[in-house]
């Protein structure tokens, strides 16, 4: 745990070797190896896919506004929700969090000049656009229609071309995330600035470490499953095809061995970001640093042994159902530790309700609902009733939208000034938050009841008794669709013409705020200095803080002065 210290914990002599600022805008379109450029490339690219995935979601909800399948029709509907889910998971949440925020923040937070393998990093990013192109192409050639889970035998008979495009794009996305994971693990373990122990790292880095370990262990299994599925599809083998003696349930095991950890790959980085954002805007140290850090590792471990809770109705033997139920429920403990620690961080703080904080607190609030419905899903007898119904759709959106998307927005509002050097507009940020929060709950809350009452998921047409709740839900979806507009306009306008941010607009204490906004090419002016612990809010007198600021200023001037001759 970070201790109170009124003297700098470590001062390294500034070593000066700089390339100086003013990098051109088109560097974002190049094979840049700068982790910050790559991070922003990821964020912008994935946001584009979020808009596509959102458009598909709107189409799905438009279909479901009435009981008849009269908007998209049966066949196109299946393509729409399959692509919606695939895009949201593989082209938005995972790459935005790991690739976007992970890349941008990890090296800055641990005082490194870049990731461990910068070229590998660029390769990992440049696998994302082809992934998207393949998937979007399938929209026009033949949409995959077997759901994002792509269970055989359905996936073997519902259209070869669409299915194969889907498999290839997921393989690309998987390759990209394996490369990224190797890079993060190495960077976090080996590239920390001298003197920074693991326990001095910001919690986001712990979360990225846990998420990367999960990625590294789980993704190859998915790749294996998809390659075997490809053989069944194209070469007539029968790994999963029952008509040749294969077992479709084996695919489900392999698929969920990846895809359950995948939800933690999506949510762990968000946990990390929230642990960064709440202390800054509540002006308080994070409560129980160690408990939060180690609970990430506990979640990482438990996350690997719970996959079969997606298969309680798949003819899974009794002992397995019971084992996986208990393991799943156990995850509630480390998750609870995090939630309570966040609440304790807010307790007694001086909370600044900036947009980042609104989304951060919105995240806590919504994630708790997703967690509670998750407990119901963990219990075998309860899950058997609600499995594959709208209850699950409600749960997964409270976790993935209420959790991941709120977290990503919180992160964007928090780090936008650092990334672009400009402030976002607070008023439009609040409008964005209110529309998102209200639309989100109108859209997804009714789905809990729909599922419990008997509405299965993945259907274009449903019993008219469910018409009212579905209509409400669709209205919420349209509000959500509209809610992205204030954000889009705000982000684009502010990036170009927003007020200048300064180095540290939130008076935050982690390392990324000690350099300029945006940071120079190798991140720091000279070697970075660790002056305080990452969460020492309220621990330092005003004099100490002024002393830190003066120190940094001197170092930077020294560095710049020495750099002059080399750059000219």
């Amino acid at each position, binding site marked *: 745990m970070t201790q109170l210290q009124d003297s700098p914990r470590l001062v390294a002599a500034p070593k000066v070797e700089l390339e100086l600022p003013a990098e051109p805008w088109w560097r974002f379109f190049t094979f840049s190896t700068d982790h910050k450029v790559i991070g922003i490339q990821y964020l912008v690219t994935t946001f584009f896919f979020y808009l596509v995935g959102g458009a598909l979601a709107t189409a799905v909800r438009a279909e479901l506004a009435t009981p008849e399948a009269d908007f998209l029709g049966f066949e196109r509907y299946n393509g729409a929700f399959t692509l919606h889910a695939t895009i949201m998971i593989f082209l938005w949440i995972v790459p935005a969090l790991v690739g976007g925020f992970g890349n941008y923040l990890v090296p800055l937070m641990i005082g490194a000049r870049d990731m461990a393998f910068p070229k590998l990093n660029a390769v990992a990013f440049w696998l994302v656009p082809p992934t998207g192109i393949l998937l979007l192409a399938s929209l026009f050639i033949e949409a995959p229609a077997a759901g994002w889970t792509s269970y055989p035998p359905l996936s073997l*008979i519902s259209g070869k071309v669409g299915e194969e495009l889907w498999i290839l794009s997921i393989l690309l996305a998987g390759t990209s995330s394996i490369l990224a994971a190797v890079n993060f693990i190495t960077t976090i373990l080996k590239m920390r600035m001298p003197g920074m122990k693991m326990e001095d790292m910001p919690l986001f880095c712990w979360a990225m470490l846990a998420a990367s370990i999960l990625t590294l262990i789980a993704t190859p299994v998915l790749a294996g499953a998809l390659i075997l599925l490809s053989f069944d599809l194209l070469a007539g083998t029968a790994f999963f095809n029952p008509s040749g003696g294969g077992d*479709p349930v084996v695919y489900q095991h392999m698929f969920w061995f990846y895809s359950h950890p995948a939800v933690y790959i999506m949510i762990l980085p968000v946990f990390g970001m929230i642990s960064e954002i709440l202390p800054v805007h509540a002006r*308080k140290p994070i409560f129980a640093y160690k408990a939060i850090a180690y609970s990430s590792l506990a979640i990482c471990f438990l996350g690997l042994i719970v996959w079969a809770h997606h298969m309680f109705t798949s*003819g899974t033997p009794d002992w397995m159902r019971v084992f996986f139920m208990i393991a799943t429920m156990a995850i509630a403990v480390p998750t609870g530790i995090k*939630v309570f620690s966040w609440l304790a961080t807010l307790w007694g703080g001086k909370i600044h*309700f900036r947009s980042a904080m609104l989304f951060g607190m919105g995240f806590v609030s919504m994630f708790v609902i997703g967690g509670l419905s998750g407990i119901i899903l963990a219990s*075998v*007898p309860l899950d058997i009733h609600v499995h594959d119904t709208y209850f699950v759709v409600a749960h997964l959106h409270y976790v993935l939208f209420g959790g991941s998307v709120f977290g990503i927005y919180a992160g964007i509002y928090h780090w936008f000034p650092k990334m672009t050097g400009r402030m976002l507009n607070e008023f439009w940020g609040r409008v964005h938050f209110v529309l998102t929060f209200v639309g989100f709950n109108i859209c997804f809350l009714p789905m809990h009841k729909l599922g419990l009452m008997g509405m299965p998921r993945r259907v274009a047409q449903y019993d008219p008794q469910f018409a009212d709740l579905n209509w409400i839900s669709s209205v919420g979806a349209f509000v959500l669709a509209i809610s992205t507009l204030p954000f889009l306009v705000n982000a684009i306008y502010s990036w170009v013409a927003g007020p200048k941010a300064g180095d540290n607009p939130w008076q935050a204490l982690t390392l990324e705020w000690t350099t300029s906004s945006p940071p120079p090419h190798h991140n720091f002016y000279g070697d970075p200095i660790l002056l305080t612990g990452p969460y020492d809010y*309220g621990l330092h007198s005003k004099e100490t803080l002024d002393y830190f600021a003066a120190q940094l200023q001197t170092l930077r001037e020294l560095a710049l002065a020495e750099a002059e001759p080399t750059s000219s």
Partner: protein
Amino acid sequence: MSAISNIILVGMGILLTLASLWYGQNHHLLPESAAESAPLFDSLFNSTMTIATGIFLVVQGVLLYCIVRYRKRRGDKGDGDPNHGNVLLEIVWTAVPAVIILWLGLASIDVYQAVYGGTDVGGHIHTAMVMESSHEAEAGDPGYAYTPVVLPGKEMGQPDLVVQVQGMQYAWLFTYPESGLVASELHLPLNKRVRLDMTALDVNHAFWVPQFRLKQDVIPGRETHLEFVPTQLGQYPIICAELCGPYHGVMAGQLFVDTPEDFERWQQEQVLAARGEGSTLALVSDFSPVHPSPRPGSPEAESAFAHVHHQRLGVSPSDLKSLQSHSGSLPSAG
């Protein structure tokens, strides 16, 4: 802490408990229950809802309290009170969820044992080839290992009735091995223990009756099972809960729980009718998309189903029969 704030705290605790208890019993989130095990499910669900409501209220309450009480006041430039942790508090909030989880886990195992205990849900994996022959042999001879289940207060033995269920795009077929009757509706006698032996002809499906709180995937190349005792007369939807193709949403069956007399009468009528047609296949022309349907009898309802079965798949009674004898084989890509 002052006496007054203690009283307030205790009062809020009581209110919270009452609110959670009330909502746990009055959430109206479930349809009626119509099978013997359903009340077990409901009581576990209600207890879980009670706990969940409590946790929900505490967490959202604390958040709201923080928003009101700890918002930054105008002109205040300081930081909050820098406490880093509190070991006792951390232990408490690790232990409390752990205990809740332990309780829920044990309660779930209990209900699970009562509902499924001994049902070998998915024990039979066979390749298509094996299945063809074994299926024939099993008809009329429910010869696989089956351990009796004990529901509270009631001794169970062998099921009173075994029905073979076949799922296929996009319909359910029910075979009554004793009479050889094949029907598109599932009729079951009231208060009799039923076992369903289920398999799929093409892709995965899932057999779900929300009023029974039971669901089980129906998988090609594998036999899965469900056991239950219907306890209420009536008509219930059989919903396919596993994505099985574009018309998955209209793959609906009907389940009728009849009095034993009605059940016998229905079975005899069907057998007679089938004899009259020189076929063991009854009711095929009677397929109707009763649930989930647009308006029953509306043109959409008629056409969705007819479209699926006659135009797209060209399924006719004779096709169904031949499909049956090739159970487990996959139709070529479509």
